[in-house]
């Protein structure tokens, strides 16, 4: 079972994504809804992959949170966003070891992306 940290402030989307992944029997998903909590979580229980929403509540957005995480961890990240804004894509890519998917996310796309990133590890 691979540990996944899902940072998503929309509870329904978070729950649906968690169910989607856990149904495969391959993942154990933890959900958080803001950047600072994700940073603390990562320091204590580092996951094998992060699913990060870009627009999240709080002082840090998804990309800013990843910049903070990158200071101590190179864990792969898949950004999930409502709209694939090209500027956001550029900013996200700069954090490294990442992929980018737009919501609503299809399980096939998500599994493919996770597989590619974990294979690179």
């Amino acid at each position, binding site marked *: 079972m691979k540990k996944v940290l899902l940072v998503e402030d929309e509870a*329904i989307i978070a729950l649906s994504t968690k169910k*989607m992944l856990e149904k495969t029997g391959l993942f154990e998903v933890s959900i958080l809804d803001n950047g600072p909590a994700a940073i603390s979580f990562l320091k204590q229980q580092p996951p094998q992959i992060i699913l990060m929403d870009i627009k999240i509540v709080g002082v840090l957005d998804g990309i800013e949170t990843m910049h903070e995480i990158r200071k101590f961890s190179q864990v792969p990240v898949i950004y999930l966003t*409502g*709209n*694939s*804004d090209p500027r956001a894509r550029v900013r996200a890519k700069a954090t490294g070891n990442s992929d980018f998917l*737009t919501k*609503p996310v*299809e399980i096939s*796309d998500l599994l493919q992306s996770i597989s590619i990133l974990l294979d690179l590890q």
Partner: protein
Amino acid sequence: MKVILNIWNFISSIGQNAGILEPEQKRLKITNQLNFVALIFYLIFNTVFLVFDIHLIQFDYYLTGLLFVAVFVLNLKQKFISARLLLCISLYWGLVNIIILYGKTLEANLLLFPVMLVPFFIFDMTRTRLIFAMLLMPFLFFIFGSLSGLFTLEAYAVKVDNIEWVQRMIQISSVIAFSIVIYFFVRSNQSSEQAMESKNTLLQQQIQTIFENSSDALMIIDNKNGQISDANQFSVELFDCLSKDSLIGKKVSHLMKNKLSDVELQSYRERFIQEKSMSGEVEFTSFKGTTFWGEVKLKHIETKQLSYQLVRIADITQRKKQEALMQDSIREKEILIDEIHHRVKNNLAIVSSLLHLQSGKINDTGLLEVFEESRRRIQSIALIHEKLYHFESVEMIDFGEYLESLTTTIHAAFSTNNSGVDIRCNLQEVHLKLHQAIPCALILNELISLLCKQSVQKGNGIEIRVSLTKANAQICINIEQNNSTSISLNSELSDDSLEITLVHALVNQLNGKFVQKNDVGMHYELTFEV
């Protein structure tokens, strides 16, 4: 007296009309007046000859009289140049006759001078060749006369009994003619000089008034030292100084808020030398320390005597403020639109997630398929909002690009079952508004999904071709099963299916036309006007 004045005015106005320019009208008037004076002289002479029974060269004299009348006729017919040439010829011919009569060339030559002045003010001074030809004519007459010996009293065998009286009359008429011509000449010169002078003065006053009262700051810069040599009242007000003396002697670059480096100044100078003019928006500092924005236009002006630069500075501070406000407002609206798109797409993602969560509790495959279909419908709308977010217009999307993404999404949804579904697209770049894009997207989602679903159900591979074309305002979308596919799908929409209900409702919404054929393979055609 009044009658004489009326006659004089009538004669002066022969041939005048509104279409003639002012200088030409003056020349026409002088031509008529001189011709009239010459005609009067001619009549007086002829009367004297009759009274004193002088049988002079009468044929020549009658001919000259006719020529004077012909001048008026030509002017009346608007043949002005011909009339002027004829006047000169008539005057010279009349002069020749007088010289013959007088018998003494020295006094008679007095008449030559006023007559020779005539061409100078009846012709346009730019017609130098014509004037020269007219001046040459009397000399040609004399050369011809001298060589032929024709211009003598003896040659004409004229009998003159009271020649002394006639000679006195000619002396008097010479003086009168000379006075008249000189009068015309002086008046013409004086009036044109006065007119020129008053025009120049008026022009100078007008230029000075425009310069001083311009609603832009105007400055004149000496090319030798680059310093301001004159400035208008608005410059004084704009730079908040006491008088123009505060500006005179300063350089415009010294008035700028951000001082230019020597390299920048040199670069601007070189550009100005090449282009002879420059313009730009510059922030200045007034003498009281306040700053303002100016639209600066610099123009190099070169005259015979002077070489200078004219600088115009328009105060655009308010415009700059408004532009900044407008930019802020546009930025705010862009953020708002982005946020709305994001919210719409996020909400659609929530609805899709809810359906997914709900479907997790269902074991019935038929019912699960219903949930999946609903999710795909939501996905197709969500995709529209994603494309809108990227496109520069807030209400148009590139539907070709959208269709490419939609087919990829549908293909991904059906390719998990190893169905062998292959979708090939041939899509033009077509821009659709949101109110047409959403129903069209839903129709295509229904049709492509239906073909894929049937292919999966039959467990065979299928190739679907999707084409999008636009001719004038007509959009045509074709979805067809490849003829070479071994299976034949019966994908005709039955009347009671949800798909047909949705497709027909959406085609009606588009005011379009939908045709389905099932020959070798299924073929759907959707057409509508944009």
